[in-house]
């Protein structure tokens, strides 16, 4: 601050000094003369002249000094000195600015102004009078155009003088950065929080908390927006189909939540796995395959026969049966010949027995079911194969399934073990509903109520087929069976209370209450109050709802049924769907206790407050510092706190990339959905550990501990970790893990499923760890394709980036970081060499091995000789990392983009959080304690 004031004073003094000059020259020009020496960078702002104009004037002044005068510029706006004084004295704090340094005028002058000065304006482009201040939409647009044209190489035209590579690089680097700043400045909400609609996650959780049932809201329009969090109110739109979808979803939820009749009987049903499997496999083999094969045999034995004579439509079908016989007879006959299949079922990847299924019969109600399997491992099985995946069966027997969990199996086949999990079984025929006027056409997807068990594999039909072919070649009979299932069983529905709490909450007077209109009205009012969180439902609204109840009763519905319509209307009303914080005509207002409770619980739980939080709000302890911290801790450490950890981290670290790719089965057989699921969990569990133990956020950059389960331990070559629960493990010597940079999820995100992408990884590190995001990938930059088709290492390919200024300006910073991570392959396993190949139709035509060169330099000049030094250097940047975390936290918690107007808030949070110990939890404390968090 002082240095700025001094500058202002200095400017003021020099301004007075310049008065003597006025006698010889125009005032404004004299100012220019003086300031061109002292503060050139802000000249155009002080005078209002564009830098280009200033340069012209300076040139003129120099000429004048040499006695050359022109008439053209002889004018004197006298008032300017005063204006300047005013400017100088009000200059107090460093406002964020998007301005291009004046030094770049030289660039324009040398390469652009020949054609694009004010006089010529070729193509109606006047760069001479273009302000170097990018603070308005118009000037930002114009500069964007300049950037685009330079990036595309369109300008300067080929026959004109070309800028030196280094010159162009600096200019482009500054311009693209300033444009990012300008966009942010222009989009700054000034701290205003827009009222937000519940996003899909919040909607699902809120319904669950109100009605006690899980629903799937994936049919609602996506909440994905232009780069922000799904909590950003401004970007959460409402489209007209949505309203009717809300009504329908609410109805589905109410159908489950409102129960009638007696408590359903819990049943246990066990199926011997071999019964279904053996029947299916032998009838497919002996009936279908062998039937076709016998026909072919007949055809081959008698050359006079046509396909139709043996019951085959045409030659195509003949060929088909030949093919399937050759592929399937070995695995099927092998399967049926194995002694283990007499009292159990073997699981194979692909045919003949890809899954053992467990059907929950149609007559069973929806609800919680325990699903079990008695399962063992065949002798001499590879440890990485000894995992069973459980999920809802997909549309086809051998197709992708909806994965629920993955269990390691350690018991031998002769002494199997029981695995079990609890599954929420949806109501029968949860249909894909299509409205046709008032009628609904229902389509029933397959597999909704079928739980399947299978050996761990890629969740993709092609991969399963490949695996089958590959192993057929290897063993002659197909995949070697690893897992053996003795029996599978289900037990359910598991009902703790009858009627369930959610039902009892709605029908609060119990089962023997008088079911009349007064009771209906009370039920509706009570539910509307809960659903609306804070806002009181209007009496007229309740009476409208009651009207709907009445017409349903008149239509002959029962009391409970008649209430479903008005209840579902509540769940489609704006009072429920929007997190409302009225300002009541004020610009800023402190939140009420209840509003604070709602904001806190949607921040940390993505759900409405529970009774305890509401109580803290009601008795006034929540607004008190200690009370707020106590509740924050309770919410964070509650199981529902995982909503924050996963919801925030997934978006903060851009983890949707993990789902962008199908990881190549042949290159990375072990990186299947179970591994992906575990890898994602590792990130969440690590953050949870820091929050739980109050450990500093720097642990995410480098740590001697990892939080993993046995699946990841195998991936990381860490011995002696058994079981699927995540636990803390000290990283053994020589294992390159500990911190985000060693995590499979992060490394796999930085690939395309086949090869690593040093660019993706480098960009991610700059964005997420070093908090120094490069500008977005520019449009229209010529693609470098000189190396295409050659067998080059990723690094060799990328070095071409340095040849073009357009690329070099950003990639000089990005790529070397990626090089430092090249010892990790596309799924994050350690490697010493990189293998490249060109392939056509699955046949490798050329291949080459490249030793990894993982040396590089960070943007600040720090050199590193490989991964470990890179990680150490990044770990030094904990402050920058914490800042990135805090800025994202502000954005997520307040539901609006982080703006420059938040800089002070971020500073405060960082300072307080750091002082308290620097754990992610401490920054959360500082945020919720800040006045901004309690202000609308």
């Amino acid at each position, binding site marked *: 601050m002082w240095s700025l004031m001094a500058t202002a004073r200095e400017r003021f003094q020099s301004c007075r000094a310049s008065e003597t000059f006025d006698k010889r020259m125009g005032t404004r020009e004299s100012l220019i003369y003086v300031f061109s020496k002292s503060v050139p960078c802000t000249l155009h702002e002080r005078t209002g002249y564009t830098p280009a104009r200033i340069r012209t004037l300076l040139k003129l002044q120099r000429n004048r000094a040499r006695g050359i005068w022109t008439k053209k510029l002889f004018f004197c706006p006298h008032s300017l000195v005063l204006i300047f004084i005013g400017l100088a004295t009000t200059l107090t704090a460093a406002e964020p600015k998007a301005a291009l340094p004046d030094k770049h005028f030289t660039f324009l002058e040398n390469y652009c102004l020949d054609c694009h000065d004010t006089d010529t304006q070729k193509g109606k482009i006047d760069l001479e009078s273009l302000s170097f201040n990018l603070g308005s939409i118009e000037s930002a647009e114009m500069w964007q155009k300049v950037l685009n044209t330079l990036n*595309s190489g369109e300008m300067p035209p080929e026959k004109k003088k070309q800028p030196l590579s280094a010159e162009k690089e600096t200019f482009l680097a500054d311009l693209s950065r300033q444009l990012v700043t300008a966009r942010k400045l222009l989009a700054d909400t000034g701290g205003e929080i827009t009222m937000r609609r519940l996003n899909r996650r919040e909607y699902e959780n809120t319904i669950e908390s109100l009605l006690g049932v899980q629903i799937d809201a994936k049919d609602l329009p996506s909440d994905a927006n232009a780069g922000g969090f799904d909590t950003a109110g401004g970007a959460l739109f409402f489209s007209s189909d949505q309203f009717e979808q809300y009504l329908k979803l609410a109805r589905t939820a109410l159908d489950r939540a409102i129960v009638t009749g007696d408590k359903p009987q819990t049943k246990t049903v066990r199926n011997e796995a071999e019964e279904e499997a053996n029947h299916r496999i032998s009838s497919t083999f002996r009936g279908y395959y062998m039937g076709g094969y016998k026909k072919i045999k007949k055809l081959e034995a008698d050359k006079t026969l046509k396909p139709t004579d043996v019951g085959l439509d045409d030659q195509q079908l003949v060929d088909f049966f030949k093919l399937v016989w050759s592929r399937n007879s070995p695995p099927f006959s092998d399967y049926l010949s194995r002694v283990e299949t007499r009292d159990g079922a073997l699981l194979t990847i692909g045919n003949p027995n890809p899954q053992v299924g467990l059907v929950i019969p149609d007559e069973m109600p929806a609800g919680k079911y325990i699903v079990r399997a008695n399962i063992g491992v065949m002798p001499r099985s590879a440890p990485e194969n000894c995992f069973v995946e459980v999920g809802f069966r997909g*549309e086809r027997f051998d197709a992708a399934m909806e994965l629920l969990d993955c269990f390691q199996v350690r018991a031998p086949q002769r002494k199997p073990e029981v695995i079990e999990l609890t599954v929420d079984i949806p109501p029968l025929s949860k249909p894909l509903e*299509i409205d046709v006027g008032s009628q609904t056409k229902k389509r029933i997807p397959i597999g909704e109520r079928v739980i399947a068990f299978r050996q761990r594999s890629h969740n993709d039909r092609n991969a399963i087929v490949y695996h089958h072919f590959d192993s057929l070649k290897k063993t002659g009979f197909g995949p070697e069976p690893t897992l053996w299932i003795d029996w599978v069983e289900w037990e359910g529905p598991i009902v703790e209370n009858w009627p369930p709490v959610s039902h009892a909450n709605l029908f609060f007077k119990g089962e023997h209450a008088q079911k009349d209109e007064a009771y209906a009205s009370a039920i509706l009012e009570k539910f509307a109050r809960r659903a609306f969180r804070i806002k009181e439902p*209007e009496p007229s*609204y309740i009476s409208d709802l009651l*009207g709907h109840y009445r017409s349903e009763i008149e239509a002959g519905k029962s009391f409970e049924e008649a209430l479903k319509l008005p209840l579902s209307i509540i769940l489609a009303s704006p009072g429920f769907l929007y997190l409302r914080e009225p300002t009541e005509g004020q610009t800023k207002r402190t939140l009420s206790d209840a509003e604070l409770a709602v904001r806190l619980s949607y921040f940390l739980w993505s759900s409405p407050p529970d009774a305890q939080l509401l109580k803290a709000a009601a008795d006034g302890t929540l607004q008190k510092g200690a009370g707020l911290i106590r509740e924050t801790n309770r919410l964070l450490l509650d199981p529902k706190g995982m909503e924050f950890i996963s919801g925030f981290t997934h978006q903060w670290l851009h983890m949707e990339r993990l789902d962008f790719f199908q990881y190549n089965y042949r290159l990375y057989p072990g990186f299947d959905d179970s591994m992906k699921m575990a890898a994602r969990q590792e990130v969440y569990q690590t953050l949870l550990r820091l929050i739980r133990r109050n450990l500093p956020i720097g642990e995410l950059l480098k740590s001697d501990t990892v939080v993993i389960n046995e699946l990841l331990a195998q991936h990381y070559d860490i011995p002696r970790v058994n079981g699927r629960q995540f636990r803390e493990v000290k990283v053994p010597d020589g294992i390159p893990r500990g911190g985000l940079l060693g995590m499979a999820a992060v490394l796999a995100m930085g690939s395309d499923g086949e090869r690593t992408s040093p660019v993706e990884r480098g960009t991610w590190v700059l964005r997420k760890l070093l908090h120094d995001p490069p500008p*977005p990938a520019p*449009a229209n930059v010529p*693609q470098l394709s000189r190396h295409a088709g050659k067998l080059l290492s990723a690094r060799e390919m990328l070095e071409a980036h340095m040849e073009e200024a357009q690329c070099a300006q950003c990639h000089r910073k990005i790529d070397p970081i990626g090089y430092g991570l090249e010892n990790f392959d596309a799924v994050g396993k350690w490697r010493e060499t990189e293998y490249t190949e060109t392939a056509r139709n699955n046949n490798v035509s050329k291949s080459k091995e490249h030793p990894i060169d993982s040396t590089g330099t960070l943007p600040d000049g720090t050199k590193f000789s490989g991964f470990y030094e890179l990680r150490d250097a990044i770990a030094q940047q904990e402050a920058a990392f914490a800042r990135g975390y805090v800025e994202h936290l502000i954005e997520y918690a307040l539901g609006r983009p982080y703006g420059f107007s938040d800089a002070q808030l971020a500073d405060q949070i960082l300072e307080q959080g750091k002082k308290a110990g620097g754990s992610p939890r401490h920054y959360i404390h500082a945020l919720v304690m800040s006045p901004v968090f309690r202000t609308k």
Partner: protein
Amino acid sequence: MNHRRHFLRSATACIGLPFLDSLGFRRFASASAPAPAPSPKRMIFLGFGWGVTKETWFPDVEKTGSEWKLSEGLAPLQRHKADISVIQNLENQYNNEAHWGSTFYLTGANRYAEPGKSFSNTISADQVAADQFGAETRFTSMQLGSADAEKDGHGPGLSLAWNRQGKPVAGWDTPVVAFHRLFSEDNTPLTQRQAMLKQRRSILDTVMGDAKSVGRGLSQTDTEKLDEYLQSIRDIEIRISKEEQWLEVPKKQPTNPVEEPSDSLKGWQEVEVMYSLLVAALQVDATRVITYRQPGGTSFLQSLNQTLTGHNMSHYSPGARQQVSELRDRKQSELLAGLLDKLKATKEPDGSSLFDHVSLSYGSNINSIHYLTNCPAIVSGGGAGVQLGQHIVADKGTPLCNLWLTLLQGSGVDVESHGDSTGTVPELQG
């Protein structure tokens, strides 16, 4: 409440009566039936996310006018060469989002146009047309899409369409949904259906009552947010009015009935079926304005037995990836050729073909890779009276919106400008 209902009644009154002919009502007309009503104009906007292969998709810029050759990527369109025009050098000047092939495609908007917001959009060309053409059909406009759009390079949005407030308009994302909405008959008795419409109306009244009280005391920005909700309720009310009006009119079946599509259609098969549905929808005059945000990414490639993801393909370089990108182009051209076949083969009541009354556009906001200039653009159909069989190389930087304006005006939409248009594309007007 009264007030609003009043407004709606009058709004309903504005909705014109359907052309009798197009509804199969002719049998009720007088014995000396007048000549068939002139076929209405229709507009189809097809958009794909990831652009094309620029090396092989665009025709040679040296050969323009009617003296041009189809490029490799357009080769499957050979039989329709005289009936398509390719226009080069169109662009949306404000779009800098290298992976948003559809967000601003039909709008030409500037993402940053509104201070204090990091995203804004404006009305899309199809919705401008729908405002004028939509009143006479069962569906004001039809938005088709696909389930995987988010990964298909389309960018934010729910379809190609954006409403007058610049908010996304949702669409039908699977052929099976489109099929049932268009052609499945509702067998519920009429009185019951009327009662249900009344009930839906009354539900809207109830939530509007709550909206009014929610709106009390809100800040300006929050009020605007709530307006999105209100707008959607108004949209539904108009829809209900329309449904009421069409309640007793049976859904007309196309002359060659479309079969109920399977649930699991993906990739090119999905596009093919959607194209059939689209033609059928126009034939029965269920709507006159259709957008289709086509799948063209991962699932599309999988249907061509390719394992690359859409994003990876879009970043092609010479070699295997470019080959995949070219394969995608050819398949898309083949599908388009199939669509044109169908449009030509479908007859209107007056004996002309549907093709003659349709204005069709096909393209993307992305050229290829990260290039946003020279957006791929093909027009076809006789509806907008544009010159066909032409290869037009416009001036560099010609707004894509000039094309939309040309098509809108040519189709008889009363509009002065659209988006950032600076005029029409004169070469198309002959």
